[in-house]
């Protein structure tokens, strides 16, 4: 089976790597793909929280690579909402040095037999944790935010990925606020494309529903009302090779909206 092994990384912390992994993993599984998400953020694991799986962890990634459980299957946590979605959680008590790149490569080789997609959630930074996460991957998604430091770090990461022979990483631009872009207070999609010059996989608008989803442990991609959820569903389709037009984030009210405003004097 030709599994796609995709690392999700960013350089800078807090831009939405884990959120992206949780939503893409869920979104792909909703399309009947068999998906495993590996959290490599050893010591700072979060992906299990976003998936609402924290209380079901028995074994973790380190147990698996150290052969402390029978097989990786024992450590995989199966999602209860979607078929075919699994999580391999990070260890919370060890640190980044507990994992080696060769161990990751070996593990992913085994997982490839069974899954369509292997999504690797990378820790922030460019040190050993990043190296371990990238080592087994053949594709990469770089997550960034529309602000200068995040874009700088993304640029650095793209260079590092290319040095590791992942020549065409894909970009997810997260937390875009169209109202701020309109006032030229925020970098827009074109500014970022100009600098990073890699394939844009999708733009996710800033959305309060993300926070709700994160706290509930239910990825926003399930939420049909959420703009961010829609953006992630589109990203999943593009990842699968569909040509999906980019969403318009125009917040200007339409004809009906203007009429409504007139009536209400707002």
């Amino acid at each position, binding site marked *: 089976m030709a599994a796609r092994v995709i690392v999700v990384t960013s350089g800078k912390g807090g831009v939405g790597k884990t959120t992206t992994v949780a939503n893409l993993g869920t979104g792909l599984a909703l399309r009947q793909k068999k998906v495993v998400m590996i959290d490599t953020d050893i010591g700072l694991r979060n992906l299990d929280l976003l998936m609402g799986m924290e209380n079901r962890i028995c074994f973790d990634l380190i147990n698996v690579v150290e052969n402390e459980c029978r097989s990786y299957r024992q450590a995989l946590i199966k999602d209860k909402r979607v078929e075919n979605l699994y999580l391999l959680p990070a260890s919370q008590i060890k640190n980044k040095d507990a994992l080696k790149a060769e161990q990751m490569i070996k593990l992913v080789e085994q997982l490839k037999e069974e899954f369509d997609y292997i999504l690797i959630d990378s820790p922030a930074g460019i040190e050993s944790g990043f190296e371990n996460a990238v080592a087994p991957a053949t594709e990469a998604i770089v997550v960034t935010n529309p602000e200068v430091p995040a874009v*700088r*770090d993304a*640029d*650095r990461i*793209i*260079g*590092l990925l*290319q040095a590791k022979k992942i020549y065409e990483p894909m970009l997810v631009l997260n937390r875009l606020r169209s109202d701020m872009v309109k006032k030229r207070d925020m970098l827009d999609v074109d500014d970022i494309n*100009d*600098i990073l*010059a890699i394939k844009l996989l999708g733009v996710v608008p800033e959305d309060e529903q993300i926070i709700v989803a994160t706290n509930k442990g239910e990825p926003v991609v399930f939420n049909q009302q959420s703009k961010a959820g829609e953006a992630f569903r589109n990203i999943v389709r593009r990842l699968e090779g569909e040509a999906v037009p980019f969403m318009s984030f125009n917040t200007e009210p339409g004809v009906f909206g203007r009429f409504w405003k007139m009536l209400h004097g707002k």
Partner: protein
Amino acid sequence: MSVATNSLSSEQLVFKGLKQGLTLFIPEEKAFTYWLGVLDEQLERAKTFFQGGSILVELGDRKLSPSELSDLKAVLAKYQMTIKAFNPLAKKLFSPRTKPEEPEPGGVLLFKGTVRNGQRLEYNGDIVVKGDVNPGGELIATGDIIVLGVLRGIAHAGVRGNLEAEIIALTLAPVQLRIAHIYSRAPEGMEAGQGPEIAHIKGETIVVERL
């Protein structure tokens, strides 16, 4: 002052603990045989202190004949001392300044693609980039730098002191420009110029002009 040569206290050879090891300094003035005598006396008095050591010898510009060298070795051998190496200072201070390598004539490095944050191209010659140089990317050349794209990072042309070196870009919007020993940065809030521009030295500053 001729009396002083026999006085033990006035003329002594200096031993110094350098990073490379204990070093004996033999001045360039006066005959070498004179200093050998001084050394012999000095070691005789401090026998136990120096005994059995391996030392460095700093001669400055003095050249030793084979017989002088064997005499020096003989004196040191009397006190079980050996010579580890000569002139430890010379390597440290003078060698890097001797003759910088000349750039290979006509050498050009052509780079296709984006020079990203954290990446650096260094070349002994000219650099041509067919693509952009992003903030945090660096180009360092002994000759000229040409960017067929947007230069947003740092470019240092003529890095070994070539004041004639030039920096050319289709869009020049660098964090910093450096030519030879002169550094400059764009004035705050200045927009990048439209169209290709060239930066070179005029007087003591770097000026940017339309190409």
